[in-house]
């Protein structure tokens, strides 16, 4: 068996699993996505016990395990707290590299949002940078209604 494989191509079965999914955003994410689409406004949920604002919003607080009852708007400007520049065109990346991924803590939020930064030389991105959300009306009520972030001048 092992010598056989030295001289011929091994048998392989090539396939692809393609299953359509419909993920409902639900009430909480739905309200957030509607605000992005209709008002270009970023909303978070607040845990009144921990006094923390979650962006993106969650129905429950992971820290104290209670429901987040109230909503609050946050700024569309924030601070980069972790950043990377993808240089290799990894299969998951839809845009052409280099692509900048960052965790951005928006002013008024206590958690950070994952997104991309454009409009800057990738070699100049750094933790602590101030960035602003850029919106598009082409993406509907999805997270892509924030098309990217760009540096604040």
């Amino acid at each position, binding site marked *: *068996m*092992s010598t056989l*494989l030295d001289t011929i191509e*091994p048998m392989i079965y090539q*396939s692809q*699993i393609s299953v359509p*999914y419909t*993920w409902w*955003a*639900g009430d909480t*994410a739905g309200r957030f*996505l509607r605000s992005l689409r209709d008002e270009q406004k970023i909303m978070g949920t607040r845990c009144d016990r921990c006094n923390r604002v*979650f*962006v*993106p919003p*969650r129905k429950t607080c*992971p*820290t104290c395990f209670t429901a987040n009852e109230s909503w609050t708007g946050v700024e569309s400007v924030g601070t980069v*707290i*972790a*950043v*990377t*520049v*993808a*240089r*290799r065109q*990894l*299969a*998951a*990346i*839809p*845009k052409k590299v280099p*692509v900048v*991924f*960052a*965790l951005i*803590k928006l002013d008024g939020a206590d*958690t*950070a*949002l*994952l*997104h*991309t930064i454009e409009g800057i030389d990738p070699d100049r991105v750094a*933790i602590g940078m101030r960035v602003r959300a850029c919106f598009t009306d082409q993406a509907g009520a*999805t*997270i*892509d209604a924030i098309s990217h972030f760009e540096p604040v001048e």
Partner: protein
Amino acid sequence: MDKAAIVGVGMTAIEKNKVHDGFADMAWEAVNLALSDAGMSIDDIDNVVTTSNDFWDGRTISCMAVSDASGARDKNVSCVEGDGTFGAFYGLTRVLSGVYGTTLVTAHSKGSESVSSLITNASFDPIYERSIGMDMISAGALQASAYMHRTGTTAEQLARVSVKNHGNARHNPKAQLPLSIDVNDVLASEMICDPLRKLDCSPVSDGCCALIIANEDRAKSAAKPPIWIRGAAFCADAYHLGDRDLSRADALTRAAKKAFAMAGITDPAGRIQVAELYDAFTYQELMWLEAMGLCPDGQAGSKLEKGAFDIGGRLPVNPSGGLLSGHPVIAAGLIRMAEVVRQLRGEAGDAQVKDPSVGVAQGVNGLCGQSHCVWVLSSIRP
């Protein structure tokens, strides 16, 4: 905790692409090696826990597809989706329940058969995160940036982890990537996602590991002296990366504290003699060492430079070569446990640490170490 021990370990070679073996074939090999190591037959196994991931395997209920080759027919078999250390934890609780005298635990995956970037992208939330295109490497790179920013750890120090672990793998016949490299080779390798270069990242791998956990009574009939489970604990952090302080691993700190306390260890940095940690990326080895209290916060890089974590150092870390030298997802943490067992038995050949009696193994599940499972193992009976 009642006494339980690891009495048999077996693993396939870790390879880039196992064309000779399907999932069940790998399980068959690892299970038979573990049984022979324990001096047991499949009839001595009271129940089986298999560990796998459906997305990686490309099939639904993937764990059941390896049950025949794991000798599970006519037995109670159960499954864990996640790292092998979590499967082992479940296996341990089954032995401690008193219902089963032995548990066979297996963990397998074949990274070669799909596309790692797409598989790990699917672990991101589909509503809020997935569309921007991140995966395990870019997530690790984000964490590396936060860790380096907070601690001042340098790219050269990261590179030294790669040099050490690939170098250690030269003594491990089952490792996929034994390499004789220096810091410059790492720093000259392709930048994949800043600050992680190709040689900062573990490879895509195929492999399977099996181990047998027994209660005290059944451990007596094993072929080799038992390796006692002195402490085992796991802990999870929040799911979303933006909810955590990515520069720290609080969940690991909690899991390690609990596991060390169970083992009666108050000074892990002084007591642990060998560590096999989940170094999916170079920075993780340093970060995990600090989070586990095996090294003061922010000092792992400088201690590494002084040789503290070499095979002959004060605390040898990943003498097997670690994940950097072979990373079959799911099996990876179970392999860490098996490697600590080999060290405590004195079976590690040229990678052997001098006379260790207490070691620690760590497994990770979830992006950027969302959850951690820590095992304190010892040749000394509790």
